[in-house]
């Protein structure tokens, strides 16, 4: 299959999706190539989901600039794309005088980065606002603009918006090679060749591999794994803010924070791994995270753990993000090494990439029929009595609750399947509407979601997968061909 586009974006994580969404306003053809079978299936799937205030990065770096700009963009962005977002603020806690020095340094750095309203709180103020924190904490740096967002919900929303505005998404399309031909690039995947004038490399942990297909090696990406715990909503009031530990060289610091859905997330540790997608959890890693977390909140309830998981970060050999074009390869743009604060920075660096693209093409004309927002989702559980009555009257499927942990209706699940960039798998449904993300972890709703996916996608139940294309849940009919 031969396809010709103006711009090909490689990778449908938050970077690729943000850039696709941003470029979708212009009258140009854009496609996104994703090796996996869903959006946001790499580093953007499993991370802390923090929109950092921006005091952490060294002034003058891309990380500092884009973090500060990105943070300020989030409220309007999440409103426009209908993504849950909570600006709950963050604390960096200090246990001793050395930590105090770090707090002061962070505050100063934050002010240089232009971060508003940073404040060092006394132990008393900390105790009043966060009564479950360790009583040995002597102060905390409060950053009111820090926030939480669901990283995969944001990526999915970005991509859905892009597709609604004409961007073409190709899933299960790993890039095998890129051939530079005069002024264009020929991108080779197992079943197609795409000719693009401009290539944007958002390939996450594989960004170095993609870069090396076009240019001589300039950087390496290492995969760094972080492990997490997720606690039940019943533990949701244990902290109200994002609680960071002081960065130090004494050991690993982990954060504890409420999520946008009022769970508690704890993590991550940090481990360099050789295999770039080794997202298993380990007994050692998990206990390291827990032991570190209880330093901040001694009474973390272990019996409220509902799951553990790990994610990978793309750690570049450079200290900063690598977002740039190249004179020797016009039209090729790297968006590489997007480690923390990548999620926080994505809306801002998408604009920067937009400028690089504008520079390359000269000027771009805006689409006449551009849709700025995303079609609103229905969160049945959050509707008022009257709204619930109305929506069920309009579509009875909203009257059948499938997920009993979070009260998610069949209508919401069906909607998540039929949207642009819709769900194709059990985990795809989970990332979009949270079925299976609650305390039963899909034990009750799983069999029902198999039925709904099979019905809506018109595929046999045996073909319904948990996540990856080979992860079928059903192996046979009973009394069928199951014998060994």
């Amino acid at each position, binding site marked *: 299959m031969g396809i010709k586009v103006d711009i090909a974006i490689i990778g449908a994580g938050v970077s690729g999706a943000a850039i696709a969404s941003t470029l979708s306003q212009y009258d140009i053809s854009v496609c996104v190539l994703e090796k996996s079978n869903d959006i946001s299936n790499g580093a953007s799937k499993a991370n802390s989901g923090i929109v950092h205030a921006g005091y952490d990065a060294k002034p003058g770096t891309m990380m500092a600039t884009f973090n500060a700009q990105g943070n300020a963009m989030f409220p309007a962005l999440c409103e426009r794309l209908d993504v849950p977002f909570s600006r709950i603020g963050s604390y960096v806690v200090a246990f001793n005088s050395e930590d105090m020095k770090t707090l002061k340094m962070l505050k100063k750095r934050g002010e240089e980065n232009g971060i508003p309203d940073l404040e060092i709180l006394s132990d008393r103020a900390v105790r009043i606002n966060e009564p479950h924190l360790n009583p040995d904490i002597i102060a905390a740096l409060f950053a009111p603009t820090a926030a939480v967002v669901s990283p995969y919900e944001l990526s999915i929303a970005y991509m859905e918006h892009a597709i609604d505005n004409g961007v073409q998404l190709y899933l299960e399309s790993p890039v095998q090679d890129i051939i530079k031909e005069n002024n264009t690039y020929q991108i080779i995947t197992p079943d197609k060749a795409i000719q693009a004038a401009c290539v944007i490399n958002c390939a996450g942990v594989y960004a170095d591999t993609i870069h090396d297909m076009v240019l001589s090696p300039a950087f390496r990406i290492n995969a760094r794994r972080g492990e997490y*715990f*997720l606690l039940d909503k*019943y533990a949701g009031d244990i902290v109200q803010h994002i609680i960071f530990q002081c960065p130090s060289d004494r050991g690993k610091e982990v954060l504890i924070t409420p999520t946008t859905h009022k769970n508690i997330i704890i993590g991550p540790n940090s481990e360099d791994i050789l295999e770039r997608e080794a997202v*298993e*959890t*380990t*007994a050692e*890693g*998990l206990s390291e995270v827990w032991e570190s977390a209880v330093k901040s909140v001694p009474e973390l309830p272990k*019996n409220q*753990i*509902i*799951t*553990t*998981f790990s994610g990978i970060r793309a750690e570049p050999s450079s200290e900063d993000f690598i977002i740039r074009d190249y004179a020797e390869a016009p039209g090729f743009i790297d968006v590489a090494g997007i480690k923390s604060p990548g999620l926080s920075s994505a809306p801002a660096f998408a604009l920067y990439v937009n400028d690089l693209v504008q520079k390359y093409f000269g000027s771009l004309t805006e689409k006449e029929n551009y849709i700025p927002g995303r079609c609103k989702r229905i969160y049945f*559980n959050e509707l008022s*009595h009257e709204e*619930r*009555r109305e929506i*069920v*009257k309009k579509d*009875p499927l*909203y*009257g*059948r*609750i499938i997920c*009993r*942990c979070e*009260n998610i*209706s069949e209508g919401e699940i069906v909607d998540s399947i039929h949207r642009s960039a819709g769900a194709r798998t059990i985990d795809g449904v989970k990332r979009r509407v949270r079925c299976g993300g609650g*305390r*039963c*972890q*899909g*034990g*009750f709703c*799983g*069999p029902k979601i*198999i039925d709904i996916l099979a019905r809506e996608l018109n595929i046999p*139940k*045996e073909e319904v*997968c*948990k*996540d*990856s*294309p*080979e*992860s*079928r*849940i*059903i*192996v*046979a*009919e*009973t*009394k*069928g061909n*199951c*014998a*060994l």
Partner: protein
Amino acid sequence: MKHYDVICVGGGPAGLAAALAARKNGAKHVCIIERDIELGGILQQCIHNGFGLQVFKEDLTGPEYAQRFIDEVRASDIEVKTDTMVLEIGKDKLVYTVNTKEGYTVLQAGAIILTMGCRERTRGALAIPGTRPVGVMTAGTAQRLINIEGYMIGKRVIILGSGDIGLIMARRMTLEGAKVLAVAEIMPFSSGLTRNIVQCLDDYDIPLLLQHTVTNIRGNDRVESIEISEVDTHEQPVPGSEKEYICDTLLLSVGLLPEIELPYAAGIVIDKRTRGPRVNESMETSIPGIFVCGNVAHVHDLVDYVTEESERAGYYAAQYILGKLKENNGFCTLAGEGIAYIVPQEIRPGNCGESVELFFRVSRTYQNAKLVLRVDDNVLKLYKKRHLAPGEMERIRISKDIIADAESIKLDIEEL
């Protein structure tokens, strides 16, 4: 707004028995609300036998046991709403429901009986390390897929946890042609019934590995292997004892927890020990007129006991709407040394008949121990027990005159 004397939230064994008892004892308008498309609850997927030995003196399958109650409900004027979810219990006993036919509806109840049952602990709750492939699921989910949906979910199986569901599923998977390699149990004993160990494992030569647990899950798309390790007396894996089993499925039968979404959201006091709502002798919660019974109150071993308890709850719910339940203060039951929990947590002697029964579990196994019952710190009675295990719910009956003026009663285990 439609008014009912009693609304049962859940149409499993607890809801069915409670509704029938409420109706028989004076509640006129009774309604059962069930979220599934049929009554019977989890019993419908329990197609094995062993149900009803206490209540009917017969050996029934789960669906047969349920059907006895369903037939009785259908023959009565009890209203049944299936495929209907209760979203919220509001103030003044408003019940917010939704379904596809009647839409979003608010019902007024005179009394509410919560009978939502329990849910299974998951891999996530145990924090078992490893990858996250398909092929890891709770035994109950597997049971539903096989017995209700008609689909097999694996061919070579490891089961973690030797509770009854794990044992039953070892046999069920074998009968469907799968190979069950082993059942691993972290404790030095199985919490399942002896008859299930014999009939589900021994009869099929399935090894039961006591003091073993799963320490790693491997596989990318599907489970490829499971690592099992021995554990020491503190339930910690012994390094060097790891053994890898090539398989495609891990089933978990690692405990059940009361489903407390509704009572929790309604502000009902939850007991830290049972993890269900605190109840008094009438199975009434901290909100007067809201009752609980069955596995949402505490997890039972046998459905027969759920039925008994639910009949009591139904009786007292009827007493409540008839204005016959005495709301005077009671005293607390205290779970002392070696006692995991006691139900009820509070007793108001005025509402007890001639006697009251205490249901409890021990926190570990005991051989030749004595159970000490104290009333107001005075030892009242000693019960000699040859064997006590957490997997078996114990009960003792106390006559009313002993506790008429009590301020507390306490149970302790003392080793001989």
